[in-house]
């Protein structure tokens, strides 16, 4: 080796080469250091044999263990499905009126319903069920067909205005102006009266007379609506198609009729039930005739804080 020499101050031999006057002392590393390098090489060989490693044209080498990340995902998904199966079974087997009696099952149902809602319902009802014009807001306390759990479930099952479904929610309002039942002046008068029902406008005696003759059958004397017929209440602040004078008059003149699919048959019973539970939980859900025995449970405990009161 060309230029080895002993460095004077340290007494250590140089490795024998120099770059622009810079030389390196030969302070060798311990041999085990090299063995660790060889060990990592052996490790990588074993890895290449056991696991997918080399990308080829069609697909990579597979490894003798047959492990794939997709396979692992499938395993995890199967495990999750197996975990859920009994819960879904229990939900499907519990009549929805009984569901709130089991707080845990109800919580599962609300969570499952929230997930299903995002897949099947947000297209019309919007993210978090906020609704928009023509698509009911499901978070408020206005319910055209009723807001207790069994009623919501029935609405989801049978849909709105689905002629093919025998139990569908069917309601039709005549086009009073379009069909020539009322002249335009009376349409305007009755619109004024409707607005006055919710104190949104001045009273209109002529409109009141028209309303009494034509509208009270479905919408009630004070415009309180009739859920049996799916006639919306007109004396509140919530308007599906807008609450100004023009929007109300337009609806009297030629009503729009929204539709919703009948989800029965498209979704399994457990999912339908969970959707109903979720919609009911959004803040406007109504109690039904036989209220649950007790709704007082301890506040939910977040994962962040899950108990430390016991011994680890």
């Amino acid at each position, binding site marked *: *080796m*060309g*230029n080895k020499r002993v460095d004077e101050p*340290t007494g250590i031999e140089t*490795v*024998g*080469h*120099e770059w622009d006057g810079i030389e390196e002392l030969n302070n*060798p*590393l*311990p*041999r*085990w*250091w*090299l063995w660790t390098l060889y060990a990592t090489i052996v490790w990588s060989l074993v890895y290449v044999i056991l696991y997918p490693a080399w990308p080829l044209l069609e697909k990579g080498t597979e490894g003798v263990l047959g492990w794939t990340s997709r396979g692992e995902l499938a395993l995890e998904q199967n495990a999750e499905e197996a975990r859920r199966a009994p819960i879904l079974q229990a939900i499907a087997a519990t009549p929805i009126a009984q569901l709130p009696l089991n707080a845990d099952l109800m919580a599962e149902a609300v969570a499952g319903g929230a997930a299903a809602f995002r897949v099947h319902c947000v297209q019309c009802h*919007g*993210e*978090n*069920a*906020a609704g928009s014009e023509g698509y009911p*807001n499901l*978070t*408020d*306390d*206005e319910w055209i067909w009723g807001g207790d759990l069994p009623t919501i479930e029935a609405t989801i099952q049978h849909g709105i205005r689905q002629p093919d479904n025998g139990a569908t929610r069917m309601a039709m309002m005549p086009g009073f102006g379009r069909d020539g039942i009322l002249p335009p002046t009376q349409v305007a008068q009755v619109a004024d009266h409707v607005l006055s029902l*919710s104190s949104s406008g001045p009273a209109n005696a002529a409109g009141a007379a028209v309303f009494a003759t034509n509208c009270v059958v479905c919408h009630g004397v004070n415009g309180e609506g009739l859920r049996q017929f799916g006639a919306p*209440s007109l004396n*509140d*602040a*919530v308007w599906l198609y807008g609450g100004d004078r023009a929007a109300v008059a337009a609806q009297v003149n030629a009503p729009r009729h929204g539709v919703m699919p009948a989800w029965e048959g498209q979704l399994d019973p457990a999912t339908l039930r969970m959707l109903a539970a979720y919609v009911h*939980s959004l*803040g*406007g859900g109504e109690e039904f005739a036989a209220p649950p025995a007790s*709704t*007082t*449970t*301890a*506040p*939910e*405990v*977040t994962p*962040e*804080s*899950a*108990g*430390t*009161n016991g*011994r*680890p």
Partner: protein
Amino acid sequence: MADLDPVIHHSPLGDYQARRTVHPKRIDGPFRRFKWLIMAVTLAIYYGTPWIRWDRGPYAPDQAVLIDLAHRRFYMFDIEIWPHEFYFVAGLLIMAGIGLFLVTSAVGRAWCGYSCPQTVWTDLFQHVDRFVDGDRNARMRLDAAPFTWSKVARRAAKWSIYLVIAFWTGGAWIMYFADAPTLTRDFWSGDAATVAYITVAVLTATTFTLGGFMREQVCIYMCPWPRIQSALMDEHSLQVTYKDWRGEKRGSVKKAEKNPGEYGDCVDCNMCVAVCPTGWDIRKGPDISCITCGLCIDACDRVMREVGRPRGLIDYVTLDDATSEAKTGVVRPAWRNLLRPRTIAYFLIWGSIGAGLLFLLGTRTHTQISAAPDRNPAFTLMRDGSTRNNYTVKLRNMQSRPRTMRVSIEGLPGARMWTDDIAATRAARELEFNVPADQTASLRLYVIAPRGTGSQEFSFDLKALDAEGERDSVETQFQGAGGS
């Protein structure tokens, strides 16, 4: 030049050397005793701390120091840290870092020499060597001896002791993460978590290897800290120094008597090398191998006493003092170097962080509220024209007992609220909740404000209904139906 071949052709093994085992000789002296003391204290802290009990009442563990990862709580005597208070841990780590700066700039590699776990355990294992195989010379003879049954028996005995210590070390570690007596029982009955066995196995293996065999090589080849230290030290940092101006030229007492004036104080007895736990010869000067444990000072002082020469041929000296002493012969006291702008600055930074943490610790409350308004829908118009906003509100009870807390609306005239569990018919401006011990309760609060209420800020006030009556408040936004 033809003979200057830059390419090296030889076996890679030639670039590496077999390790030369270090067999440090027994020595006694002030620094050795100091090392004993530090070792006893640190090992006692490490092995013993998890077994200290601390009564926190029925709702919290009674282990004085416990890192409860599963429940995300850190207990340290009277202090309990929640995950959101992790800045305390960050602060402690910063203090530890600056503490190392402070120690290094003042007393050099004192950490390496006395309190680094690698040093402490290496020292412990070297005592095991001495106990089983005898002192330096006996061990060197045994190393060189062929493998006989007696040597095999000795090796087996020694490694068994290594293994017991290593296992005990790994076992002590997991005790910090669970109730120690319970975990010990579970561990031996096979009921402990798998991770406990894996942790013990890994730490047993690393302790056995690093303490029993790797030893000084960890400091020399693996540890990054010595590399950083060399940047932190300056000419006023203490380091173990062989006073070559006094020691050279080396020669035995006999030689010195024959030729007075020719030889220095070093009698070339090699005691300093023999006692060195890393096998360094301090007379070659400072090196990454020197962890500044001071054992060579003990050895040299003893030899100097025996030959009737002044102590301190090897001593803790700063570079600055060494230069001055070499010139003037006056020994400057080393402690002067401790107080200088750099160390004072480090100390002030270190101390102010510590004071800040203590202040935060003393003033923190154990009652907190947070509120997150729903963003979508931002508001819901109700039938009667009132507006409802929904909030996710969290009540944090950091006391180790269940407490009743009262949440009230401050501001937002006419507003009332209810929850999933308190029906809308019972809506009120104040609601009471039972919050379990040491937990966070999460609530859905529905706040409804009368028709015409515009967007505005308001607060949820929280008051714990107990003797202390701790309070907290969170300001949040109410979104009116008219938009903001």
